């Protein structure tokens, strides 16, 4: 895979409310739908505490009343069950034309897992996949959640990697509908680790695995509020 593909990189300087991040993805997705040959894009950010549900997700995995959630709750257009976002968790939203990357949604999920495995590897940690499930586990605890949505093979949503976040928010849900395995974070394996350290590793791993060259937005490519 040559690195001839360009992807516009948007890195948020401060936490982005969920709806604002979603809006940014939809804007980028609409641009790529209108111009499928155009540059792909990548959003890297952290969200303030919130919960999101995939389109087909079950309320049964919420341990709270959906009408009165402990943090904002959104039902969104991705696959998968409930998950939790919070500060200290790196969220990567690739807006890609997946037909340039194999046109295979399962393969895309596996590639996203591989990106996380690569990051862990760079930190000297050995992550693993769990057969039949999507995500990345470290020492038996899930450290990365993955869920994507696509329209005409243009992707949105992506992966969330728990770096140094407070894990207590996960207790209010059954993350990804998997009740029997805990959620973990990298900080517990690499004391002092921060998202600032992991972010460049994540971008580097993504760039390599997907064969895209990351570059800042130019002119009209910029997004309002970024």
């Amino acid at each position, binding site marked *: 895979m040559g690195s001839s593909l360009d992807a516009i990189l948007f890195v948020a300087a401060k936490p982005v409310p969920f709806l604002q991040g979603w809006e940014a993805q939809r804007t980028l997705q609409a641009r790529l739908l209108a111009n499928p040959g155009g540059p792909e894009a990548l959003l890297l950010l952290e969200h303030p505490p919130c919960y999101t549900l995939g*389109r087909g997700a079950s309320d049964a995995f919420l341990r709270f009343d959906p009408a009165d959630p402990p943090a904002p709750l959104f039902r969104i257009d991705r*696959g998968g069950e409930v998950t939790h976002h919070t500060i200290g968790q790196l969220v990567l939203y690739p807006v890609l034309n997946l037909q340039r990357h194999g046109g295979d949604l*399962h*393969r895309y*999920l596996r590639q996203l897992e591989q990106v996380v495995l690569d990051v862990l590897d760079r930190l000297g940690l050995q992550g693993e996949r769990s*057969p039949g499930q*999507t995500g990345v586990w470290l020492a038996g605890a899930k450290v990365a959640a993955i869920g994507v949505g696509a329209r005409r093979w243009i992707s949105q949503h992506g992966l969330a990697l728990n770096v140094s976040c407070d894990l207590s928010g996960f207790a209010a849900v059954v993350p990804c*509908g998997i*009740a*029997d395995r805990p959620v973990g974070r990298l900080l517990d394996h690499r004391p002092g680790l921060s998202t600032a350290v992991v972010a460049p590793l994540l971008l580097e791993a993504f760039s390599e695995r997907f064969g895209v060259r990351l570059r800042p937005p130019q002119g009209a490519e910029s997004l309002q509020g970024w």
Partner: protein
Amino acid sequence: MATHEIFMPALSSTMTEGKIVEWLKKPGDRVERGESVLVVESDKADMDVESFNPGFLATVLMPAGGTAPVGETIGLIVDTQEEIGTVQASAPAAPAAAPAPAAPASAAPAPVAASAPTPVAPPAPAAAPPAPAPAAAPAVAAAAPAANGRVVASPRARKLASQLGVQLDTLRGSGPHGRIQAEDVLSASGQPVSVPRVAEGTAAAVSGAPAAPLNGHGAAPAASAGKAFGRPGESVSFNTLQGAVNRNMLASLEVPCFHVGYTITTTKLDAFYKQVKSKGVTMTALLAKAVAVTLARHPQVNAATSADGGAMVFPASVNVAVAVAMEDGGLITPVLADADKTDIYSLARTWADLVARARSKQLKPEEYSTGTFTLSNLGMFGVDRFDAILPPGTGAILAVAASRPAVVAGKDGSIRVANQMQVNLTCDHRTIYGADAAAFLKDLALLIETNPESLTL
């Protein structure tokens, strides 16, 4: 005037079926070209499915929440509002149309044993799974080839027709508007249609076996050919489940395993099984129960080495997983939780439910990943012995072969005929030693040979 089909799209080369998360349009709604009509989910990925044609969504053949094989027609779009009524009148309503377990592409049901060392199917012909009604019966048979001479057939039907040498234009389709379905092609070529998606022992193994089964778990498979996932000369990628199994099997190479075999006389068990099978008790349930009761008294054999290799982990309950081969490749191990404490009738019902949901890929992770001990049975194929690969995270797996009449010599020199089966226990030697395995097998044999009636208590 025309009718356009919406197919279940292939979102991945490893996707065999997809779940309809949501219909964004309802019957009667106007649809623009390129507009999203529904959302399909496979794994953790959603994809909007768009209409290639402008028109009206006339009918939904598979409702939200339903699962359809790739290539199956799931909705119909018509050009004009006037055609909606016509199509709705002739197309079966959604639930009725839910295609009976779609016949897998492989032509005939065949034993799954060939490939991997552990693929396993439970025994118990008694549980005869609900054999799907023969190919959606000709109830909906509609006018054969459309008046304009165009043959309407599903993609799989076309593929099968070319493989089996069936002329599509000679068939009457049983699908909506006389559309020719895979099942129609299979019927026309004389192939069996009702192939379960999971080779869970029974139907494939039992049906038509001319020689009477030796006993409850010894029927020979009826199918004539071995299963293959590809054709000669092809190279076929592993599907997701096969890949998962592969990783699990490779992980076992890190485990110091050994095997201990035992021959168990099953004459009494077989006789007892005949008595209780009318009450819905299956051989799988009996074996699982026997193993569970014995494990409860041999906690060392229910234990496993911790992931970091530093400890022996003793589970709080006895959860017996039973390996089931999937028709489209790979295998899954549905779990009978607390099998030692659950009555045999509940176990049999739970097992039937687990297998049905494994077929439709509806099992929750905790329903196939929480086994503390695994049972693997190839008895229904007449296998006389085999050994199984240890699933990660557990300490032992029992391979159960066929029960067959054997000439048995007594210590006193007497000779008699008895049903016997060989079992073979694979153990992680870090946690389970030879003496532990032997004591467990001895007790299991004693229970099965002398007191099978106690399994219903």
